[in-house]
């Protein structure tokens, strides 16, 4: 069902955890649907210096969370905004059709975290 890459990220998820005093936090999904994803960002200038996640969800949800954190580390926030659901799924070597929506969650959580950062940032200015 899942590619080796998915299983690798599921088994050894990268960047699990949270960041105290994160510059941006994004959360999507709800427990009712069986998936919640939260992403924490530390941002310096407009570069993503550190990223962590926590996820309650299926194998694909865990793997896409892990993947997206790997993909954004070191990127600018504009570059990170460009990361699409499809790109996350592709980076994992594909997802089963019925699981494509799980990749939505990861990209959406990331984008929400960046928006959250921009909101905070703009307020500070």
């Amino acid at each position, binding site marked *: 069902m899942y590619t080796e890459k998915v299983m690798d990220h*599921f088994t050894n998820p990268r960047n699990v955890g*949270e960041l105290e005093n994160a510059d941006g936090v994004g959360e999507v999904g709800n427990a009712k649907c069986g998936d919640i994803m939260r992403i924490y960002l530390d941002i310096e200038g407009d570069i993503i210096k550190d990223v962590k996640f926590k996820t309650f969800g299926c194998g694909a949800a865990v793997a896409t969370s892990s993947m997206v954190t790997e993909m954004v580390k070191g990127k600018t926030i504009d570059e990170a905004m460009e990361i699409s659901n499809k790109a996350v799924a592709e980076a994992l070597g594909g997802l089963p059709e019925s699981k494509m929506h799980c990749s939505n969650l990861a990209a959406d959580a990331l984008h929400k975290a960046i928006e959250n950062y921009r909101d905070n940032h703009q307020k500070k200015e």
Partner: protein
Amino acid sequence: MRRVYLDHSATTPVDPEVASVMMTYYTEKYGNPSSVHGFGREAKQALEQARTQVAELIGANPKEITFTSGGTEADNLAILGTAEALRTKGKHIITSCIEHHAVLETCEHLEKNGFDLTVIPVDEEGVISVDAVQKAIRPDTILITVMHANNEVGSIQPIAEIGKLAKEHGIVFHVDAVQSLGKIPVNVDELNVDLLTVSSHKIYGPKGVGALYVRKGVRIVPLVHGGGQERKRRSGTENTPGIIGFGKACELAGQRMAEDAQKQIKLRDKLMNGILDRIEFVKVNGPLGEKRLPNNVNVSIRYVEGESLLLSLDMLGIAASSGSACTSGSLDPSHVLLGMGLIHEIAHGSLRFSLGRQNTEEEIDYVLEQLPKIVERLRMMSPLYDQVVRSKHV
């Protein structure tokens, strides 16, 4: 890698004795039972012997057994066949909210085609109330269809009483006994049923074979038309090797049922109590004791999601299921658990272990050793668990 199969409610291995009987009918005694010649006759004879073996396990007459391609087809034949036969008599059908999809989807198909459907709720243990069925009965009720034991939570239903009700009202009564056969006694007279579905691959027989018991005098319209096999109830060249395997599996089930149950109840309780002892925030789904199938363990583990649990167990060679096998690939939480009143997030974290003849205590120990570690790891990742831990520390 070590492999521990704990998904016997999804399907079972074929018993080696069963497989070896079947082999002969694939390669040597391969005749078509409808044929006049020796090859045909030897196949026919074995087919009829299998019919007797199935009948004996459920206390029926062999003539009352119609072989099908499985439990799903038997459920469809019972429900659609009765609806078609009695459509001028009435249009109301009663079922329960914890039925297998083979029953629910079929009833809903009829609903879309002009029938009325009442779906009886269950209590928090997953048991239907006889009272609720009684209240649902209308003058135009033609069929009551409920399961003997539930495939997800193992709850055993008050079939005999519902059957008595149905009989009093002259309503055809169909029971899906796919999960109870071979695990607890199934007797068509004691249960007061008119139609009863059984399936081979849940009792160490081959996949792709099942049967519908049709009480003498009960009329159903066939689903599949053609050569008129199975006393015109189910056309198609008979799957003789499969049917013969099913017959043998029934014979073995009859011999081993008491011993199997005794052994599996012990393992079941060991596993269930072991999980409760070792893991926090766990809830057992379904009834305890006598009202539960001997081989079913179903727990909800809070703050983790079922598929992640399954995958993690799988990597250690442990095969289990979350909800029923048919839906574990999809995103909906089990309709059975929701029907029992579980909220979505708890239903999502449910896990079913279903025991079989070959399981050992040592295998249960292995699961009890691994599962807590898996849950711990997944909970550390879970944003829901955070809050729990934090609120504890406050």
